[in-house]
């Protein structure tokens, strides 16, 4: 599908010059699989967003939307066969793709760190957790073994792990899921990174534990001024934890802006659909309206807006070209040609096509 002229404005804010340079700038990023003799398979297409220092940025979408891959591309951890096909990722102004592997590795830990979804498989099963936390500081901060071990225990204490000195000698399988995730967080923050990438860190946890872990992440990031790139499919989590968000569908960014504004007044049919299908505890009697259908096959996306087949606002024009990013308010964009009509539609009802 040809890339039509989407706005290359990387900032989700469309007004005024920024006072500080963004920490992370993703610019027209396309991630996929190169195939010889055939079209490349594009999983993430023309994605742009920016994260300011200290900002808590959420990336929302369902499975297969490409949100995890985006995070992995930033971390340089794309799986075999998947690569950045075009676009740039700039950290503090420097193009990550243009760096040598060694230079990039120097960033991983003290500048950029990642928390993974499944702590059981993301921790080395045969190494004690204290050692695993200490590995980063030893490598990047040049700490001695003893000093790094002390730092590890301190980090464990700060993430709320009881009896950290003893627990540091435990192996991952000896700890509960919640504790393991705290270990992962302690590990990620051990070198005081500027940007923390979180790939659905609470999805695999019990609901009660989820809340605690989220609070922990928020507190620690506030304390240290670490920016957060938080990938999730759970709207409630984004609502609680993030201030800005980008909504992804089938590899495209379909809506972006401050979380409260977007959730109060969604301007993309997909965002509306997400909100309408999610339970709201403040309004328990509201009917849940699911989005019919399934996301398109990544290798065979239709022309035009990828959401069109499932969209109740879709018109003919939606299927011919990918919609451009439209300004829909202060610091907000939405990629829909009917975005200005969506705000006034009643839940569950299609909007009349205005001539």
């Amino acid at each position, binding site marked *: 599908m040809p890339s039509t002229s989407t706005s290359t404005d990387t900032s989700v804010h469309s007004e005024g010059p920024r006072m500080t340079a963004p920490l992370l700038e993703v610019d027209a990023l396309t991630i996929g699989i190169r195939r010889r003799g055939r079209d490349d398979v594009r999983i993430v297409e023309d994605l742009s967003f920016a994260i300011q220092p200290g900002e808590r940025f959420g990336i929302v979408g369902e499975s297969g939307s490409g949100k995890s891959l985006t995070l992995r591309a930033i971390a340089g*951890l794309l799986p075999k066969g998947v690569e950045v096909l075009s676009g740039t990722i700039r950290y503090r102004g420097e193009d990550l793709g243009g760096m040598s*592997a060694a230079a990039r*590795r120097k960033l991983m830990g003290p500048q950029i*760190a990642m928390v993974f979804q499944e702590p059981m*498989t993301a921790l080395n*099963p*045969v190494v004690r957790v204290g050692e695993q936390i200490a590995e980063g500081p030893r490598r990047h901060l040049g700490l001695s073994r003893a000093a790094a071990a002390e730092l590890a225990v301190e980090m464990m204490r700060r993430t709320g792990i009881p009896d950290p000195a003893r627990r540091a000698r435990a192996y991952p*399988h000896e700890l509960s899921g919640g504790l393991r995730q705290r270990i992962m967080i302690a590990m990620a923050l051990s070198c005081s990174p500027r940007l923390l990438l979180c790939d659905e860190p609470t999805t695999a946890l019990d609901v009660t534990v989820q809340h605690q872990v989220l609070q922990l992440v928020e507190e620690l990031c506030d304390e240290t001024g670490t920016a957060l790139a938080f990938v999730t499919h759970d709207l409630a989590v984004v609502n609680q934890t993030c201030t800005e968000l980008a909504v992804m569908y089938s590899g495209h960014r379909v809506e972006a802006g401050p979380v409260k504004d977007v959730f109060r007044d969604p301007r993309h049919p997909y965002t509306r659909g997400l909100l309408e299908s999610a339970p709201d505890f403040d309004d328990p009697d509201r009917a849940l309206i699911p989005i019919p259908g399934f996301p398109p096959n990544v290798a065979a996306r239709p022309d035009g807006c990828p959401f069109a087949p499932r969209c109740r606002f879709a018109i003919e024009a939606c299927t011919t070209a990918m919609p451009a990013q439209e300004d829909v308010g202060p610091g907000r964009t939405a990629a829909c040609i009917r975005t200005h009509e969506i705000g006034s539609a009643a839940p569950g009802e299609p909007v009349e096509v205005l001539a």
Partner: protein
Amino acid sequence: MLHRLRFIPGRLLQAVPVAFGVTIIVFFLSHLLPGNAALALLGERATKASVAALTEQLGLDRPLWEQYFRFLGQIVHGNLGTSLTYQLPVGQLVLQAVPVTLSLLGLALVMSLVISIPLASLAASRPNRAGDLFARGFTLLGQGMPQFWVGIMLILLLAVNVRAFPVGGYGDGAGAHLYFLFLPALTLAIAMSPTIIRSLRASMIGVLESEYVGTAKSKGAAGMPLFRDHVLRNAAIPTVSIIGVNLGYLVGGSLVIEKVFALPGLGSLMVNAIFSRDFPTIQGVTLFVAIFVVVVGILTDVVYTMLDPRVDLAGGTTP
């Protein structure tokens, strides 16, 4: 960790019936010989006197069960009989030969790891590329070549055509021993490597795709630290198990290699005993080797437990 080693007494206890079974089989080996066992053992040229002496020594004129218990009693006292050829206690001959065989096995193990680990890593990090195909080809070839023939070829290439190594023998002194053991150990290493490479490659591929290697990379790990602390530490675990299982087969192979290189170890002791029909020695060596294999099996479990903190052999794996 000591707590997890508590399976050892139980395992030793389990080994006891196996050990008994071993002794029964070894004992009955002599009774598989048709006709007068002593006569058959000594061959046709035996004199009446020697036949009578052997009959008495082996207690062949007593009831079967009595012979067996006599046999057991002797073993427990460390008496493995007297060699017919050397007129020395079999136990003594075995103890003299054991260091040679153990050195050979030890050196071969080290060499096979030196060969296997790099090849397996190369194969696992770039599957289906040149390195992997070479490793798999080496594995295929290694399994297809008779061990003793590999030894002969190494002699041909490195001892005859190029006088780099001796043709056989053991030498005097530790340094010389190492020199003389090089080719035989290399032969065994070539025989051992295919199994190790295959197992290590498979487990490495699994580990390289794992989440925790991704986590390590997200901390900036790469190269040797990544390989040593994360990949190898995990990939080695199933391979240790496989080596342990195959050790019995390898011990047998080493016996033949000793003949090829004229090393004075258990293998030569055994083979020579076979040709000189020295039955007590054959019995003694077989018994020793079988018990050795059982002990090695337990040791393998110990090493395995030490390597993998999740394993609890006394009560099943921890979830």
